[in-house]
């Protein structure tokens, strides 16, 4: 395997890890709000969060491209914050990935939070538990399998990203040249052997991930038992 391919793998893992970590901070908050409040606004938020599931990634990429462009108002603002244009940069890719994989974290967690026994939540109030205890002693342990599903799906979905990266990341080695782009390059240049290596690796990784999601953690989240 060429050093270019190895660096693409490394970059992909870095992007997927960073995306997953960010999503683990944002996702549970949104999922909790959505699970607990059933107002009209929450349906709108739910719809927005779910958009990446149905939109072609290129649509999301196109709008993010416009948004991140240093010529646009928000783009200038973000450039002032990050010190560099977000288009064709790792940071831009990271923000796009977070948006793109958000439903894969929010949806399983929202379902898990909603299925929590209402009386256990009341008990937290009766015992006047601290926020720390509520989150880390009760809620996360009770919904741990769903957290594992969310982590796996977010990670795998980010690894498998292509359309969004193409639109706003381009093909810059060590910055935005992720696995799927490298694979595309190999096919374009008819280097099928190198393409096979990457493609098969991705296939195996995705299969194992989904097997874990459905077979192990998915099953576990349906049979929460502690005996």
């Amino acid at each position, binding site marked *: 395997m060429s050093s270019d391919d190895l660096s693409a793998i490394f970059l992909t893992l870095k992007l997927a890890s960073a995306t997953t970590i960010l999503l683990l901070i944002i996702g549970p908050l949104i999922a909790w709000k959505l699970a607990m409040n059933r107002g009209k606004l929450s349906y709108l938020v739910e719809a927005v969060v779910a958009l990446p599931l149905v939109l072609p990634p290129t649509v999301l990429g196109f709008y993010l491209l416009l948004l991140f462009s240093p010529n646009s108002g928000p783009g200038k603002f973000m450039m002032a914050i990050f010190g560099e244009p977000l288009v064709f940069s790792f940071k831009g890719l990271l923000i796009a990935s977070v948006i793109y994989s958000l439903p894969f974290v929010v949806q399983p967690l929202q379902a898990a939070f909603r299925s929590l*026994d209402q*009386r*256990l939540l*009341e008990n937290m*109030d*009766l*015992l006047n538990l601290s926020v720390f205890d509520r989150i880390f002693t009760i809620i996360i*342990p009770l919904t741990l399998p769903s957290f594992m599903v969310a982590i796996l799906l977010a990670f795998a979905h980010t690894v498998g990203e292509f359309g969004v990266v193409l639109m706003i990341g381009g093909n810059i080695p060590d910055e935005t040249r992720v696995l799927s782009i490298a694979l595309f390059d190999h096919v374009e240049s008819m280097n099928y052997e190198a393409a096979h290596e990457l493609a098969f690796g991705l296939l195996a990784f995705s299969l194992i991930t989904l097997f874990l999601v459905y077979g192990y953690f998915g099953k576990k989240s349906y049979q*929460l038992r502690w*005996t």
Partner: protein
Amino acid sequence: MLLKIDISVSRSNWQARYTCEISGARVVGVIGRSGSGKSTLLRQLAGLDVDGQGDVQINSTLWQSQTIHVPTAHRNVAMVQQDYLLFPHLSVQQNLALVQKQSALPIADQNQIIDNMGIASWLSLKPGQLSGGQQQRVALVSAMLQKPRLLLLDEPLSALDFKTRSQVLQQLKNYLDQYQVPAIYVSHHLDEISSIADHCLLIQNAEIVLSAPTHEVLDHPKLEQSVSAEQFGSVLPIQAIKFDHGDHIMQCQIIPLADPETSGTIEGQTIWAPIDAILENSQLHMQLPAKNIVLAHKPIEGSSFQNCLSGKIVRLVQEFDHVLVIVRVDGHDLKVIVSKRAQRQLELSEQQLVYCHTKSVSLLTPAIAH
């Protein structure tokens, strides 16, 4: 404690109104049939439901008014419910630790409570490994460790067997006395209410129909509509005297009440009851369901009735399809339900001497008095 409640709850096709003012009582019993709105009252007091309109005041603190609704977490109430909720993924010890962290009780007292309630050996187990009764005891301990401002108990002993029920009730009573914790105690069991509550609320159709000292409520005609036919009856204070190890039965004596008509002390009559040996020498409240008592003009011989109490009929209350006969036994009013036909055949009338028979096994399990 001073407790002022004036709340109304409106839900689709269901309305409740709770109004009462209790001062001085420390343990308030709540009696009512299932579905009469007892649990709703407790949930309102805990602040778990926010749909109630009106005022709730405990001592000098306002928990609810037109403009205020103190959230549950800030009320410092503890609640033990029939379904004894513990966090299923935490061990008993971890469950208790959540409370102990912020308990106002000294550690030594906390450990004492855990020991007294007999749960020390389960600390490392998960709730799923305990029986329903054991989980209920842990939930009760958790509530006790909290040393709340108000302890809300909704059938807290419902999952316990008879023997443990008496012991746990005794421990609970000691705890409430020692730490001066006010409590609201909901139960179907009149003996529990009788032994632990000094004041009592009768709830019918989501309304408080009677708020009075416990002994008045237990003798009140409205009681009959508030309890199931199996539970309706009298509660007598008794002394467990001697356990017969051969027959596994306790010899007890009614603790007589001075009767204004008969001067001087009277010896209480004997009752044989299915009470555990461990309760020997303790004072108990024994519930005698009114349906289970058989009246006769003279003691019935050659039957399996173990108990025969003599008394005088003081009152006959004609109901639609039966007669409620009040018999004074050792100064206590014993309620007996007979059919109209039986009353006519026996020609029962006031001031008449009668014998009240019961089988030992039909006596409802007693709760400790002191």
